[in-house]
């Protein structure tokens, strides 16, 4: 199972963190510090996998952002790389050409999206269509509740696209 996922910038600023096991905050900060430094110190074209303590670290850089996951010994590295890619695709589709700023300003959306893709550190839904559908349904509910008089209300969210 995945133990955690970190998104950080080339300057080492943490943009998103998702922990699938309970660690005290102090330990989380320590792990983050160590891993960010470790990954940033690696050169391009190096292997995307690292052994780190008793875990395997899988990372990939997309433009200014690093996506970094820690998985357990029996987990599949290559597919973790593709979990990252699928997540990026989802963000991209949702925000329309996603960039680091989208994630900063809409961090809560980034979390919601991640919860659809992965739950408890395991892959939950890998169909891009299904995840986006779920998020769109949430957004509809949102608009529905924010603007109760909207026409959307009458359309009903469940039968939406």
């Amino acid at each position, binding site marked *: *199972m995945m133990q955690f996922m970190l998104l950080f910038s080339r300057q080492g600023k943490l943009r998103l963190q998702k922990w699938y096991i*309970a*660690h005290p*905050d102090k330990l989380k900060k*320590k*792990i983050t510090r160590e891993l960010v430094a470790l990954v940033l110190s*690696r*050169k391009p074209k*190096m*292997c995307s*996998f690292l052994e780190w*303590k008793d875990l395997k670290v899988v990372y990939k850089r*997309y*433009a*200014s*952002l690093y996506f970094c996951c820690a998985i357990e010994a*029996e987990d*599949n*590295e*290559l*597919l973790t*790389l*593709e*979990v990252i890619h699928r997540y*990026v*695709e989802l963000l991209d589709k*949702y925000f329309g*050409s*996603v*960039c*680091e*700023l*989208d994630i900063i*300003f*809409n*961090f*809560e*959306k980034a979390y*919601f999206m991640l*919860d659809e893709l992965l*739950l*408890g*550190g*395991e*892959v939950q*839904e*890998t*169909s*891009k269509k299904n995840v986006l559908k*779920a998020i769109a*349904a*949430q*957004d509809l*509910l*949102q*608009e*529905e*509740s*924010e603007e109760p008089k909207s026409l959307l209300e009458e359309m009903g969210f*469940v039968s939406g696209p």
Partner: protein
Amino acid sequence: MGGSTFCASKVSRDLTKKATMPAVKGDNMRGLLVFISDIRNCKSKEAEIKRINKELANIRSKFKGDKTLDGYHKKKYVCKLLFIFLLGHDIDFGYMEAVNLLSSNRYTEKQIGYLFISVMISANNDLIKLVIKSIKNDLASPNPVHVNLALQCTANIGSKEMAEGLGNEIPKLLVTGMEKSLRETIDSVKQSAALTLLRLLRTSPEYIQIGEWSSRVIHLLNDQHLGVVTSAASLIEALVKKNPEEYKGCVSLAVSRLSRANLQDYTYYFVPAPWLSVKLLRLLQNYPPPEDPAVRTRLTECLETILNKAQEPPKSKKIQHGNAKNAVLNEAINLIIHMDSDPNLLVRACNQLGQFLQHRETNLRYLALESMCLLATSEFSHEAVKKHQETVVNSLKTERDVSVRQRAVDLLYAMCDKTNAEEIVGEMLEYLETADYSIREEMVLKVAILAEKYAVDYTWYVDVILNLIRISGDYVSEEVWYRVIQIVINRDDVQGYAAKTVFEALQAPACHENMVKVGGYILGEFGNLIAGDPRSSPLVQFQLLHSKYHLCGPATRGLILSTYIKFVNLFPEIKSTIQDVLKSDNNLRNSDVELQQRSVEYLQLSTVASTDVLATVLEEMPPFPERESSILAKLKKKKPTVTEQAENKEPKQPMPQAQMSNNVNTHNTPPPLSVPAASNPPSAAASDDLLGLNSPGPSQAAPSAGSFLLDVFDTVGSSPPTNGVDSNGLTPGAEESFKKFICKNNGVLFENDLLQIGVKSEYRQNLGRLGIFYGNKTSFQFSGFSIDTHCSQITCTPKPVGTTIESGAQVQQVINIECITEFSDAPLLIISFMCNGNSHRLNLKLPVMFSKFSEPAEMDSATFFARWKGLSQPNQECQKVFKAKFPIDTEQNKTKMLGFGISILEGIDPNPDNYVSAGVIHIKGSQVGCLVRLEPNKNAQMYRLTIRASKPPVPNILADLLEHQF
């Protein structure tokens, strides 16, 4: 498929388009966006903190204010707090407001509330009870999106309280779904429920009862919705690990699902459902190959299809296609290795990985090296792996990424055997000269292990280790240099060579302190073997060593001082030179207490003791007991876990103390030249060194004078005759005390009013040495003391002892044993003596069992299952079911099995309560491997013991011995 993302060119565009505020989707919390912009515009850390403090004050006053906040504002402030927390600041308020949001009717407020709770709340927070209550409400909601929020929050926190409070609710959602809802939404609830349950199962299995639903859970693998199957597969794997038998039905379902895991929405860059396929392939790795021939054929077909696809031209040039395809392929290869039964598949897998070894993708080369390590352990593919030795050596030399080079080292280590050991060790030594610092220590350990394991000629071994110290002295841990000393001491054929080689190595102008340690120790023991050569005469040896003395730290100096006192014994001609050194202020008044004490004591010893006493005290070290190499243990525990790093403030012991305590605490390490302090009786210290005891040894065998007196007054004159025997002709109690030794080597074999008999034993391969201590507890002399041994199946050579034992005295007898063939009858020990006019005779069983010649064997699960399956003839197995004699205690049982001479193999049996072990029993000229499985049943307080071994009566002999131990 999805256009590229985060493309580099966009960064500059961001600056123009989104510098102030990006377009925001959906909900619009303007205040939050303004705040985030403000933070981003802060020019300094101080400005940022100031802005944050202002915001915190604002939010605090809003939360405390009289006006009740509406949901929107509450949500906005909670979200701001979350953002501040994610920037790395502590947040100590707002939790209650977030919990309030959970019961809001508006979805977005609820959602933000759950997000805040998921990210911020720690498991032991006071509010957790309230959170659980809200979750319970939402789980019962008719609205599936609310149910999902509640499930996701449960999965995100996954605390024990949640398992306790919600563990009953969630399985229902998984198997029944909700009424009146659309199919689609039921599916999404099922998906989340499966993974939420999995999370709770991992934290607190005691609260999760699947019981009656197990078959319905298994059948989720048949669900039409591949998302449900994907989630359920993870849950089922966890359940299988706990109870393989109950979930056995999933094997055929998983195989059939694997062959039709194809649905358009789940195809990823032309690869059909890679995530599901990988999960299914992993699930199958929890079972042996399917028994049902039809299922087995189908699985083989699936695996062949996957291997075939690897050879087809790629359907897309995108890296994602390759990654997903190879992810499935790698997992298939893992399954093939796990089953370890189809040589054809194994060799195909190996060839495939061989191609990857030279692939242009670094990631693939890395994974190929990793998977090949596993293939190297299978007897079917070991040879095939060896064909790639040259490529792997090449990787070691040319890869630019240290983590890939590390994998190459691992693979060389795994593929090493007798035929290529010299070559591989040579390559590794060569690489070590320039190796990255981060992997040196591990490499040193690996080289040391290989050199020991495959040494035909021990001079080669000594050379390798000394090379290690020369090339990489800083990375040679204590275990490594302890081990070379153990081996040199235990093998007299290499001692002269070792002395000569260390002597030469010490002549280098700059030699590593570890070299000085090894050199000092070995010259102290075996310097005499080269003293005949005038170039290495005693004085030259001493001067050479002393020239290093001042360059070394206190621990090494202590060791060298011990070498000096050993020299006093070996070379009386340089005694006065050594005494002068010991006498120097630098030593006698050294500020280091340890060095000062050694100097004082050694000086005194050299002055007052007669040659005989010196010779006894400073005798050559006795052989070390053969146990698992401590280097191997070190290598195994090298990797710290993530949680360990939290408390990595291990107290560093000051060196000299660490050195002294080695004598007492560790089995495997030679005490760096311990010489007993002058006040200790030499013999006791010598036997300590011999066995490194932590079990009752000489202190029991040699009762103190105090307890003697009591015994004497209590019992003299009333002692019953000890000539009675039981139906087997044994003295009463003999059988019971014999059994006490099945899992340990030292202890009291017999005791009555007259006599106490203690035993210490050590075994190496097919040889054993028993020290028997006879203690006279009476106030009379034993006369006519004689000892006789009877044995038919093993060679038993007792050394003679005197015919009298004085009152209160103890004599020791050594008995050498050699195991010729397997045996079930223990040798008899017959003791007769006269005491106070009465004659006594004891018929005891010598505590020597066949299992004593067993050494624990380590293997991975693939090897274990392959061997287990290989031993399937009826007479190769013995099974016993018996009632537990003691409370079932995992730790004690492990200790017993290790004491029995077999390993504890973790992670092999899918049921963690079971014990799986392996051992190799040494018989003269051959070895017998044995595999053991012990399954406790806590409810019934029963055990089932299964032993398999290649040679027919062996399983029965071992089972008879082991049966009574638990």
